[in-house]
């Protein structure tokens, strides 16, 4: 996934948004029920789905803006705000809880200085909960920028975050 590196990318120009929407629509043109793939493509390109993309998508797909917004807000994966350069997802589900993920989650929150569902003030990292990464035999597990890491400890997590510059 593309994550913005400098401030100009956090507020993509109308032209950039239009282009991302156009390309995403083109890629899935003619496929039935293609809204989710299109939204994934827009988010992949811009790092999130800016509100200015909603009317463009609505017009092209013959849906109301409310319907597009409704879909974006329903799914946890879609963001309507940019994420930090590093996205840390900590599994909060049962198997990881059985192996101490509550303490790991608390450590992550303290280490980054931000709560879950939030981005650090400097935009360096976003902390998200995730409900199962399918690595339950090696709990606890986390994902950093889409890459899975299992048998996690607070110390290992610190090293991984440090390697990412956080």
């Amino acid at each position: 996934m593309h994550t913005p590196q400098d401030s100009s990318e956090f507020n993509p120009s109308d032209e950039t948004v239009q282009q991302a929407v156009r390309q995403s629509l083109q890629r899935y043109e003619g496929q039935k029920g293609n809204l989710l793939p299109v939204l994934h493509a827009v988010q992949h390109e811009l790092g999130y789905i800016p509100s200015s993309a909603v009317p463009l998508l609505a017009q092209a797909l013959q849906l109301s803006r409310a319907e597009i917004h409704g879909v974006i807000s329903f799914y946890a994966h879609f963001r309507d705000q940019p994420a930090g350069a590093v996205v840390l997802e900590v599994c909060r589900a049962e198997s990881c809880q059985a192996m101490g993920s509550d303490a790991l989650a608390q450590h992550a929150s303290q280490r980054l200085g931000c709560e879950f569902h939030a981005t650090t003030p400097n935009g360096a990292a976003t902390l998200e909960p995730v409900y199962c990464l399918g690595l339950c035999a090696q709990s606890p597990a986390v994902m950093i920028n889409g890459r899975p890491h299992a048998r996690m400890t607070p110390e290992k997590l610190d090293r991984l975050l440090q390697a990412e510059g956080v």
Partner: protein
Amino acid sequence: MDAAITLFVPKDSAAIAVGADDVASAIAREAASRGLSVDIVRNGSRGLLWLETLVEVETPQGRVAYGPVEPADVPGLFDAGWLQGKPHTLAHGLTEEIPYLKNQERLTFARVGITDPLSLTDYRAHEGFKGLEAALAMAPAAIVDQVVDSGLRGRGGAAFPTGIKWKTVLAAEADQKYIVCNADEGDSGTFSDRMLMEGDPYALIEGMAIAGLAVQATYGYIYVRSEYPYAIAALEAAIACARDAGWLGASIRGSGRAFDLEVRCAAGAYICGEETSLLESLEGKRALVRAKPPLPAVKGLFGKPTVINNVISLASVPIILARGAAFYRDFGMGRSRGTLPFQLAGNLRHGGLVEKAFGLTLRELLYDFGGGSASGKPLRAVQVGGPLGAYLPESQWGVPLDYEAYVGISAMVGHGGLVAFDETVDMAKMAEYAMEFCAIESCGKCTPCRIGAVRGAEVIDKIRHNEQREAQVVLLRDLCDTMLAGSLCALGGMTPYPVLSALEHFPEDFGLPAHQPASTQAA
């Protein structure tokens, strides 16, 4: 120079998550620096997940296992002569002889960990496409009959007979029908779908193609959760290869019968594991659960008759067609036929995947395979079947894993995932979490689930903090009753299972009097 020696380094997420990519590069580097010729195959995982990264070396005697291997271990392994299968502290002898693997009955996972997941040559060399070839020579109704006769039931959790579902779709008249694979494996403690898709994607593709031939559907979708990027990549690559080789497309292997499919990426909503909600999502909508009837088999995706099955159900079909219904049906007990890939998770020493025929007990899985707790403390509770499954106390660990036997103890086998907890677990907290999870993931369509889960978490919080405890317990039971009976789907309808089982079996964690030991109760 000698012929290259083959090493297998898994590329399953579970291996990558503990450094398999670094191990593979370390091996390549070390071999090059020693002037040795090695061929590194990135296979699926054998499912002995506590040993990942599990590297295997091909020797004349068979594949020899080393694990868990860290990049730093690699030079020492070369020094010890691992390319000749020689001993080392990380060596486990021949992989096939490791009891954890040897004592399994691998039907659906027969190839996983053995083959290169994307090699069609490997796939065919291990019985691949035999089922589809058989199906191409059969009439649709005959294929359906094989699946009915095999006794295969939905492996996603609901355990509905797969063949009966197919029969309904075959009988439905329509200009278009669909095969949908539910790969939204969101339950904690489950990873068999992921391992199958990453380790043997052609098995799922073959199963879906057979389903297409059986019900006369020409198009399929695999709906995979976005938390599984490696599974999505494996499936997309495999579909492209299968299409190029003529196993998918307008005329499968020149038979004149068509089937093609695509992968759809989900977007982080647990509810999409519920079949009607998944269909809504595939149609590009908010994933609100649909009321049934109509059943998806009659009016499913885009209003058309649709087979919707779990990954393991579909991936079990090829072997049924290849070896016959009777072969599969001979495994298992009662009305639970065949095998289930159990997933050992949570606080266990030897977590991993164990495919066995139905009928073994939790105790065998926890101790004979799982090796007891990872923490070394006594095990106390096991949640079977995901976040909507019951918590079972030790007194129930001897019940055979069989769909009906589990219903008999108000539990469910579900997708075969089990999460073990040691004695440090607070079961009242787990009950509260079950309600919180339901509140987070509720689609919001029906009131018992949307409001009930929020109130449920509040009530359990009060119980935990001794605010009118006795009265709140009455309220909680009443609320669970409403959710059980009044919810539209399994999320609201089954969240009471973990809650009530925790309350029933571990009352002391809720500040209630503990059960009397059985010996004093008898009097």
